[in-house]
């Protein structure tokens, strides 16, 4: 087994460990009697041990891949997103040792699993570095950012738990709607993983040429049956599905197709869950949060941001500017990725200031924390894949 194979096997180990730990955490929390934490105390230890083993394997993946590629594995969508899944677990481990709350693991680990699975849908082969990335600032800048985002995301998990506890599933409300919308969007990610894996396992490919928005001829390979066709497409693969709609040059029909497939499959999955359990997903999770101490969740959410904010500033602004100055001769260029890092930073700054006032702690903070996570994910996914600038990984 060479280093690269070892690396991907270690990632599998981590994945499986997180999966097991999710269930043990869940069981630990569910086993608590109302108002007591006995089960959590006992099983929490087992669960965190499994998590730590998984995390060690995850770190093993990271450093063996570093060894195999010769550069910090933070240079493309697969590597960066996987690292984010890892630091999310890392952030959880830090806060678990501060506050010993099993319920946090029950929420964070499945999200980390989802993120790693999502990452694995992107090409994972070892890619060479373009000149701008050939510097140790790649490792310094990106690893700091990804650690900060992992920690900041914990506040969203704490916020989610807070909301699961306070939002009344029996009463129609905006809160209930948005909470369920969050659950739905997580299921959509599952949808993406499911369709991507299905079509990649069955080896689906359809090639087209098209005319891009600069009026140049270009080629594209679809990995899923093309629902949308590119501008003035010509099919090259026999027997491939004919696109239902042709889009104007401005729209990337290939990406749109992926999105629509994911939404389609995700929505079917979501309704299956609803049909089987006859409950909203947020209501399904409700029994798990019966013992949650709201004030503690609020504190954890706040603490995660307090720990994460300075690290984020250092990585996403300070180190980023130093590197940009060296590589591109200017420390700031209003590139979309930079701008979204600034937006994320301003958002958390706004959060910190809002919390100075009364009435913003508790539920409102929880919503804000979740929105913060949404911004981080937007920067990771949408900005990389859609608003591509200098930082584009896709």
């Amino acid at each position: 087994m060479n280093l690269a194979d070892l690396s991907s096997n270690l990632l599998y180990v981590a994945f499986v460990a997180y999966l097991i730990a999710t269930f043990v955490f869940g069981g630990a929390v569910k086993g608590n009697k109302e108002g007591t934490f006995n089960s959590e105390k006992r099983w929490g230890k087992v669960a965190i041990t499994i998590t730590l083993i998984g995390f060690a394997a995850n770190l093993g993946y990271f450093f063996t891949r570093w060894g195999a590629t010769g550069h910090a594995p933070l240079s493309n969508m697969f590597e960066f997103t996987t690292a984010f899944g890892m630091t999310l677990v890392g952030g959880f481990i830090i806060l678990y040792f501060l506050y010993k709350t099993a319920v946090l693991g029950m929420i964070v680990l499945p999200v980390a699993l989802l993120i790693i699975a999502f990452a694995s849908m992107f090409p994972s082969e070892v890619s060479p570095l373009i000149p701008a990335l050939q510097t140790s600032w790649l490792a310094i800048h990106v690893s700091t950012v990804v650690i900060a985002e992992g920690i900041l995301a914990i506040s969203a998990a704490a916020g989610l738990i807070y909301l699961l506890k306070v939002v009344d599933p029996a009463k129609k409300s905006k809160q209930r709607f948005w909470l369920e919308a969050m659950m739905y969007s997580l299921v959509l990610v599952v949808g993406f993983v499911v369709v991507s894996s299905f079509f990649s396992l069955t080896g689906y490919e359809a090639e087209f040429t098209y005319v891009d928005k600069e009026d140049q001829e270009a080629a594209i390979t679809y990995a899923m049956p093309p629902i949308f066709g590119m501008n003035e497409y010509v099919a090259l693969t026999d027997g491939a599905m004919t696109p239902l709609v042709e889009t104007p040059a401005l729209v990337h029909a290939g990406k749109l197709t992926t999105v629509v497939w994911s939404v389609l499959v995700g929505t079917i999955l979501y309704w299956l869950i609803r049909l089987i359990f006859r409950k909203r997903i947020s209501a399904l999770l409700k029994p798990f949060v019966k013992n949650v101490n709201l004030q503690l969740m609020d504190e954890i959410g706040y603490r995660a941001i307090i720990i994460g904010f300075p690290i984020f500033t250092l990585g996403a602004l300070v180190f980023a500017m130093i590197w940009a100055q060296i590589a591109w001769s200017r420390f700031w260029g209003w590139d979309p990725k930079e701008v979204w890092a600034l937006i994320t930073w301003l958002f958390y700054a706004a959060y910190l200031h809002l919390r100075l006032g009364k009435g913003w702690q508790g539920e409102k903070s929880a919503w804000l924390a979740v929105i913060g996570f949404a911004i981080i994910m937007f920067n990771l996914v949408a900005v990389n894949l859609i608003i591509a600038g200098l930082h584009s990984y896709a």
Partner: protein
Amino acid sequence: MENLQCQCGHTNPPGTKLCESCGRSLTEKDQNSKLVDMRYEGTARRSQTYNKSIIDKIWNFFSSVKVGVSIIVVLLVAAAIGTILPQQAFVPASTEATIQAYYADTYGSIGRVYHALGFHDLYSSYWFIALVGMLAISLVIASLDRFVPLYKSLKNQRVLRHPSFMDKQRIYGSGPAAEDTLEKAETKLKELKYNVRTDKNGLLAEKGRFSRWGPYVNHIGLIIFLFGVMLRMIPGFYIDESLWLREGETRAIPEVPGYYLENKGFALENYTGEGGEEVFGEALDRVGTVAKNYQTDVVLYQNSEDALPGAADSQEVVAEYPIRVNQPLKFDGYAIYQMDFRLDELKAMTFALTNKETEESLGELTIDLINPVDNYELEGGSTVELLGYYPDFSGFENGEPQTATPLPNNPGFLVELTTPETPEGETSFITIQNTVEPLGENDFKLTFLSADTRDVSGLTVRKDSTLPILGLGGLIFMIGVAQGMYFNHRRFWIQQKADGTVLLAGHTNKNWFGLKKDLDRVVEYASLPAYTDQQDEIDKVEKAEKEGETLS
């Protein structure tokens, strides 16, 4: 406004909420509330006290956190709008008109509106800059409004506080205790690294007060940073020039007096996927060519001190350096970056003067496409005169040849050919594709033989004297956030009454969990009375009330 006299006899400045000396609540509202607002120690803040003159109003506006957060949120939203479509710096158009047309053509009506609203250059628009300016003003005023009274108050803290101050703290407990309780508490607190002061029957233990200055320090850092950004508008602080340098060429560096740069050679290297790069094979198969290195080998010259300016032989070599991405050439406060390149630009073209009929050559000439000479004498007595040179020929306008750019992309030559046979000369217009003979059929022509090419490096010359200021601002900001966020200001007040009853109160600016952990250890060691988190109590009552509402 009048000073406020407390029951304890202390005179407080107008606007004070908690007596500076004993901590009693001075307003009726505070007297009736269950918990006291400790954020600024109940001090008198200018913004909370005066609201008469226009200056008061402006001061109060900018010192409000609500206003500050609103500015931050507006900036955030504006920044996001600027990423919906690419900014003008990223689109392949350079003049006002072509930029406008680009947005309209590429993005349709959305693009047209986006451009019309000025969003294509959002980050340098006046309103965006004005917003950043308001942020800066707000930072300064809000910080001053709070820092000054907070500093005074924390500096002049009394150990003994009135019981009504103690029981309005979030962490509070009271009850009988042993005689040596206070001493034991003091020992334990000192062990936990608290500064302990005692006065008569009370003690004040404090830790991490400096963390309270964190926000002010980080705001100062931000202000310094923004100041640095502003400085770059002043000429001289900031230079940003581009320099296209052909292989073999030496040029004066723009805006850098006395320095010259020679391009010894440009190299573009791609990954091969072979040898040590085999690991990349799969990725290269998928994405195609990937660049590995862009490099310009340069020599930097400087005019020697005593030489006449511009005299070529008086230049001294200062440095030889391979400029690569991430490895700019630095000298004397300037830096030169590898930013761009053009491969295989035409350098010179070689022609033969031939007789059309016999195809016999009367000699060859090479025209330098950057600095062409006008006259070419061939061996057999023929001459070629260059009447006109059009480096980037783009067609005729009113019969005149035109050039689109000064770059030799598509050279056109208007020549007069004189041979012993045709002493009166023949005129001919030559481009790469064809030859036009504007004054009638000629006997001779220039036949294209070969062309030399070379690469051109696109370099950026940069000086940024504001960097140290920006760095300082960033450093101070980082120190400030770390100071304010990784440390907490924790305090305990303990006093023992004559009857042995101990009162105990605690406060922290953040991390109540940590505060309680400290307190638990002290309570256990010194057998202090049990304490409660009064916020919990309030939450419970509120929750019960809410549930009561829904039930009834």
